[in-house]
């Protein structure tokens, strides 16, 4: 016995040593290979500059975008070329790369190429010109347009010219590279009124080409061809990947070694492998990108510098975005909580009519994509044609002036954020209210306090920690929301940190650094709030959330019962019924400006299109596939983690738990941004613009939703139930399948849906991460809304709503009524 123990101890130590050495070998080999590659003169950066020479897309780009521009602008081609070249030099940061990209061309061909590159540089992202403004530009006469374009080009070259109406309006409040990008957009749009100067497909192809592995490999091959043996080539072409794997391996072995040392029991446990595997995943895809993001913000050129931060936070537009974000989030928090507390109390603790119905109704909003709300309110409160505005004008005889309400404003933004984020507070508060011991209130009543005094002195103070937790959740969700401000804020020039980040990212590699600078702000904000709510407020929590539900005592509203029910119903109408109805109605309209019942204005066209157009079906399929994969992988990890957390005392089990909590608290935009920054080859992994990166992003953001559900279910099942099964002779596996599995099945199903649903219609991360073949329904909807057809977008939105409601129903049936969202 003793000897066998000794034997396994030696085996264990040897295994560890071998693995450690292997890790070191991988690191050293990877570093050497990468070094070889670098000395060959092909750093990744150089590979980037090759792109314009190598991609055939540039020709297509030229044909579709630049040629008509040159033809129509009516300016001197040579002068234009000159201006373009200067701009390119300043944008690319040097003469050398520009010359390299231009190659041995001359004359018109050269000019064309210069313009092409310039367009590619500026038009890849940047501020988009909305349909309304495009119409304004189209309204200009050909002569005016020509004059405007000349003025733009001169302004771009440094010779500031007064710009005519529409252009000046568009550039208002912009400066620096932002203004340049906008001018370029106006220029290109004016040149080609039919559509975008560059199709979004082309732009994304171009972006992708800049970063695909193929490019790198081509570059490598060129560099190492004929000069190295196969071993060197393998290490050279994947040097960074080997370093990454080596570091992880060595790190894991070290951690394992110290755990075993502390345990004094030299046996390799599968549980440790699982923990380390999950931790490795999170380390690579969550911690590394986040750290890289911070480094990128503070070390723009490899040296510590606050220049990015300084530049960003002294720029008016960013400052206004910052203050808008803080004001909007704070107001939403206050308003949302002020709404949620009485609603939670009325629904949970009084004899309000239809309490259960209202409860499910308010909770359901939680599962609706926020941008759908934004779209609905836009239709309702548009200053010119919003239905409510039209109705109000008619009612008060205000004539044809715009208003009186304007959704394109900070209050408008706050209103929509509130209607979509108050359920977060509502759920937190009503859950706590259900768990509160009713005799705490009764004790106050017998002590002589009236019901109102009891609410003020007992109920409210005891609820305070939950109230704060709910409020903070609303704050951080509102601050990191992208869908709503992008739809409402952008046209109204109400920028927020998230919309600014996405604008910056759209501007290519230069914008990335600025985006990270803004991202860091959002991340720090989120982390502070996460810390407060998880570690400070939770400590003062009086109500244990996992405790049993008690039958709360119901307050009789007496004569107020009917009026208050009417009030709650009115509220539900305003925040839920009217917006959703608007979406449905709009989805059948042909002409947005007319009533649905106007002659010939009703059509099923949108609905038939969304279920027949290939592009739509493709997006729908992508969304389903990604969400199913995310939810399935997520729930497996969630179950594993729940088991480790609830049933073992294994060392290190809290580490992945902590990381998962942190991940879910990180704003979506920041997750996506950090993934872009770190997952395009710099660290040996290149999954940019692939389905993997999207699934990983969804996992990081939504894994916790599933995990919490399963963990709390497992904590309710006493371990003796499992022990009893084992005593009866069932193996561990059999126990899991026969006892634990069936008992927590409803929670597993609920957890799966909780990951599936938000992944299905996700927008903020998708906007940053989608590639040509990985567009999802959420993003497609957003594009249709912004650039093509609002009724079509509404049809899609309503289809998404239906899917959510149906899934909710399925879940309810599947768990026999125990769960619905």
């Amino acid at each position: 016995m003793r000897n066998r123990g000794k034997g396994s101890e030696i085996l264990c130590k040897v295994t560890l040593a071998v693995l450690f050495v292997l890790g070191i070998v991988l690191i050293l080999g990877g570093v050497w290979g990468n070094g070889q590659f670098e000395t060959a003169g092909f750093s990744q950066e150089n590979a980037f500059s090759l792109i314009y020479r190598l991609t055939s897309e540039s020709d297509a780009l030229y044909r579709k975008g630049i040629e008509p521009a040159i033809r129509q602008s009516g300016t001197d081609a040579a002068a234009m070329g000159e201006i373009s070249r200067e701009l390119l030099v300043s944008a690319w940061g040097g003469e050398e790369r520009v010359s390299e990209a231009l190659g041995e061309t001359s004359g018109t061909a050269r000019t064309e190429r210069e313009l092409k590159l310039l367009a590619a540089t500026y038009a890849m992202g940047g501020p988009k010109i909305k349909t309304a403004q495009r119409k304004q530009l189209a309204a200009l006469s050909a002569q005016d347009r020509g004059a405007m374009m000349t003025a733009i080009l001169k302004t771009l070259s440094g010779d500031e010219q007064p710009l005519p109406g529409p252009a000046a309006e568009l550039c208002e409040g912009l400066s620096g590279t932002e203004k340049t990008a906008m001018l370029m957009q106006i220029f290109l749009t004016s040149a080609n009124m039919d559509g975008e100067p560059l199709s979004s497909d082309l732009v994304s192809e171009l972006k992708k080409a800049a970063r695909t592995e193929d490019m790198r490999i081509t570059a490598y091959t060129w560099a190492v061809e004929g000069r190295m043996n196969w071993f060197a080539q393998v290490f050279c072409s994947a040097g960074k990947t080997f370093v990454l794997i080596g570091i992880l391996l060595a790190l894991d072995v070290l951690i394992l070694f110290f755990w075993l040392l502390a345990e004094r029991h030299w046996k390799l446990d599968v549980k440790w492998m699982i923990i380390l595997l999950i931790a490795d995943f999170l380390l690579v895809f969550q911690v590394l990108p986040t750290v890289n993001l911070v480094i990128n913000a503070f070390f723009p050129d490899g040296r510590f510098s606050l220049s990015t931060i300084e530049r960003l936070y002294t720029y008016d537009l960013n400052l206004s975005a910052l203050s808008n974000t803080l004001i909007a989030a704070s107001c939403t928090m206050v308003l949302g909580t002020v709404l949620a507390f009485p609603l939670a109390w009325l629904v949970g603790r009084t004899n309000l009519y239809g309490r259960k119905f209202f409860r499910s109704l308010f909770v359901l909003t939680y599962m609706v994509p926020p941008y759908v709300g934004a779209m609905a309110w836009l239709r309702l409160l548009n200053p010119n044609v919003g239905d409510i505005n039209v109705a109000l004008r008619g009612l008060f005889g205000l004539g044809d002036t715009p208003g009186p309400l304007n959704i394109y404003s900070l209050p408008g933004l706050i209103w929509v954020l509130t209607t979509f984020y108050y359920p977060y507070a509502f759920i937190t508060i009503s859950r706590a209210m259900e768990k509160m011991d009713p005799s705490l209130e009764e004790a106050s009543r017998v002590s002589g306090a009236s019901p109102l005094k009891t609410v003020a002195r007992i109920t409210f103070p005891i609820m305070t920690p939950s109230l704060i937790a709910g409020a903070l959740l609303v704050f951080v969700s509102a601050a990191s929301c992208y869908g709503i401000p992008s739809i409402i804020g952008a046209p109204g020039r109400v920028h927020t940190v998230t919309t600014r980040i996405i604008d910056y990212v759209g501007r290519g590699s230069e914008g990335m650094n600025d985006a990270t600078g803004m991202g860091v702000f959002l991340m720090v904000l989120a982390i502070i709030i996460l810390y407060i709510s998880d570690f400070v407020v939770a400590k003062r929590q009086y109500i244990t959330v996992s405790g049993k539900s008690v039958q709360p005592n119901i307050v009789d509203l007496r004569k107020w019962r009917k009026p208050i029910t009417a009030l709650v119903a009115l509220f539900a109408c305003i925040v839920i019924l009217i917006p959703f109805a608007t979406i449905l109605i709009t989805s059948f309209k042909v002409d947005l400006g007319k009533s649905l019942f106007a002659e010939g204005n009703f059509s099923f066209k949108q609905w038939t299109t969304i279920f027949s157009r290939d592009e739509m079906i493709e997006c729908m399929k992508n969304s389903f596939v990604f969400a199913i994969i995310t939810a399935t992988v997520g729930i497996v990890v969630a179950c594993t983690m729940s088991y480790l957390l609830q049933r073992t005392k294994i060392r290190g089990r809290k580490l992945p738990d902590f990381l998962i909590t942190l991940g879910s608290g990180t704003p979506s935009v920041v997750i996506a941004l950090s993934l872009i920054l770190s997952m395009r080859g710099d660290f040996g992994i290149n999954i940019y613009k692939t389905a993997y990166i999207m699934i990983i992003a969804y996992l990081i953001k939504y894994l916790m939703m599933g995990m919490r559900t399963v963990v709390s279910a497992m904590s309710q099942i006493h371990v003796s139930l499992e022990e009893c099964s084992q005593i009866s002779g069932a193996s561990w596996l059999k126990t899991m399948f026969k006892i634990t599995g069936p008992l927590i099945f409803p929670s597993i199903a609920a957890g799966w849906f909780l990951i599936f649903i938000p992944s299905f219609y996700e927008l903020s991360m998708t906007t940053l991460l989608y590639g040509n073949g990985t567009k999802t329904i959420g993003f497609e909807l957003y594009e249709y809304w912004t650039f093509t057809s609002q009724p079509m977008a509404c049809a899609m939105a309503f289809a998404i709503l239906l899917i959510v409601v149906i899934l909710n129903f399925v879940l309810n049936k599947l768990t026999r009524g125990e769960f619905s969202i």
Partner: protein
Amino acid sequence: MSSVSIRNVTKAFGDHVVLSEFNQTFEDGEFVTLLGPSGCGKTTMLRMIAGFEKPTSGEILFGDKVVSSDRVFLPPEKRGIGMVFQSYAVWPHMTVFENVAYPLRIMKMPKDDVTRQVQEVLEIVHLSQYAQRIPSQLSGGQQQRVALARALVAKPELLLLDEPLSNLDAKLRESMRFEIKEIQTKLGITVVYVTHDQTEAMAMSDRVVLINRGKIQQVAPPAEIYDHPANQFVADFLGKVDFLSGEAGGGCIRLDGIEQTIPYDGERVGRVEVAVRPERITLSTKEGTLRGTLVNQYYLGDVNDCRVQVGEKQLRVITEPETYARMKLGDPVYLTFREQIVFDEEGSLEDKLKIVT
């Protein structure tokens, strides 16, 4: 004024009647226990006295003041009572002092008086040194005493206690039992105490109101209710009991399935039900009224708990611990009932004893 009169109170939730035709007066300074199995309606009765529930019909009076009737309904805060809850209901966001001072502060009593009165009552419940603690730092027993102090601080004349000891461990429960009784005697207040624990009821009460299925079964002081139960249910619920059915007549009862007789000088004739307490049976190896065989015995330290086979029946007999060593299984033994209760047989016994929950 602190007597409580309950007149014809019925309480129904929908069609389900939980308490019917409750009539009872609790006298000033009396310690009354509402006893019964869970779900019998005792807590509902207490909550109606407190004002948390409204009777479906009937009246409740404090002294001669109507607090609840068809026309009048005083909410709990206007009834001037003290109450201790099963879960203690000590407010977690206040210190012990603040918890106890709450009723006085609601009354807007001057600050100095509050401090003095709270200290007094904390003295009574032995918590003076814990005044500044927050409830989560206290043990269950201490929280219980905070709840008691809070209920007593406003000097109510009526104190309601809803299973206050059921969450405490056995030892603590026993000491709290006497503590509560002592405080009640000292302050001379009326106490209505709800419990399902018969020992608690026996130890503390002046009178026990035994309820089952929403109906009062018997109201009597502990000794009387134990010795002279009004029906089989009362006999069974309080203490241990052996039931035997038989035929009465001619100065004796012939027991079914035993085919032996016991002497009987009561008035009943015909089918009867005999209830006998195991500790009131004399067990002897030499002589007695019934002859049987010892089939099991358990040494419990203070007593010897035996099972004796008599004919087809098995009787439980509790006897002195010394007998354990003297007897062995299979020995013939003789039983004599020192005391027995005889009821008329009405329907099946099982049905009678069933507890509705």
